[in-house]
């Protein structure tokens, strides 16, 4: 099952898995909430890449439309999340997630 000439779908599966793993590692390793947020974006993009690869492999446009919706939801999510982070920074003076482990003052 070749997607491009000489590239099989398994290569895209591997690439997406590695990108997703890097994202998970970033979420687990870092303490800065903004970098955790960026790693979530990286994971979303790994899934998007896989959806596009399968859409091309099957010659079907529905996968690409699904990626379109994921992008829309990600844009809304980033806007709301960054607003929440800005409020957190305004109230606590840092975006370190260890400060936020009580969810109240």
């Amino acid at each position, binding site marked *: *099952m070749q997607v*491009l*000439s*000489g*590239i*099989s*779908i*398994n*290569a895209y599966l*591997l*690439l997406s*898995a*590695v*990108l997703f*793993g*890097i*994202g998970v*590692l*970033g979420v*687990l*390793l*870092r*303490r*800065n909430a*903004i*970098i955790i947020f*960026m790693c979530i*974006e*990286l994971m979303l*993009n790994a899934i998007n*890449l896989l959806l*596009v*690869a399968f*859409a*091309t492999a*099957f*010659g079907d*446009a*529905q996968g*690409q*439309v699904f*990626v*379109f*919706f994921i*992008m*829309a*939801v990600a*844009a*809304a*999510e*980033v*806007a*709301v999340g960054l*607003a*929440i*982070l*800005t*409020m957190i920074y305004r109230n606590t003076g*840092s975006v*370190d997630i260890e400060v936020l482990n009580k969810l109240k003052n």
Partner: protein
Amino acid sequence: MTQYLFYLLSFIAVFCGILVVTSKSPVNSVLYLILTFFAIAGHYVLLNAQFLAAVHVIVYAGAIMVLFLYVIMMMNFNKNAEPSKTPTTQLIACIAGGLLLVTMVGALRVTGTLPVTPTGLKGTGLVENLGKVLFKEFLLPFEISSLLFLAAMTGVVMLGKKNSN
């Protein structure tokens, strides 16, 4: 030719992804993440999804990452550097993340290839074809996503207002 492009773009994406996680300054992380997104946009072009590649560059590199940069520059992190987690926690995090990666790769290795029957539409990723699918089969989700944006917009304005107390 396409093979070499695939490997080059994959290398750039993975390398910059690792740098996003490891770089100390959040601004550097954002810049590396933009490079990763451009590599993924190149993948979309290779996969004949030209419209998605354009939308990806516009939405992610153009809008979302600018938002990230704006928030980071507003927060001014330079005074207090981010303290890192304890070595034990870092080790546990590496083991957990690495195990997830090993599990996924191991599961993918034993996966057989699917029998595929391409419907053979030429130009699947072009605007004409995608627009037809989007406005015929996915009209209701499309309208609901506009509601989602409205809710997100009002929510952000509510959140961003300064508290009176």
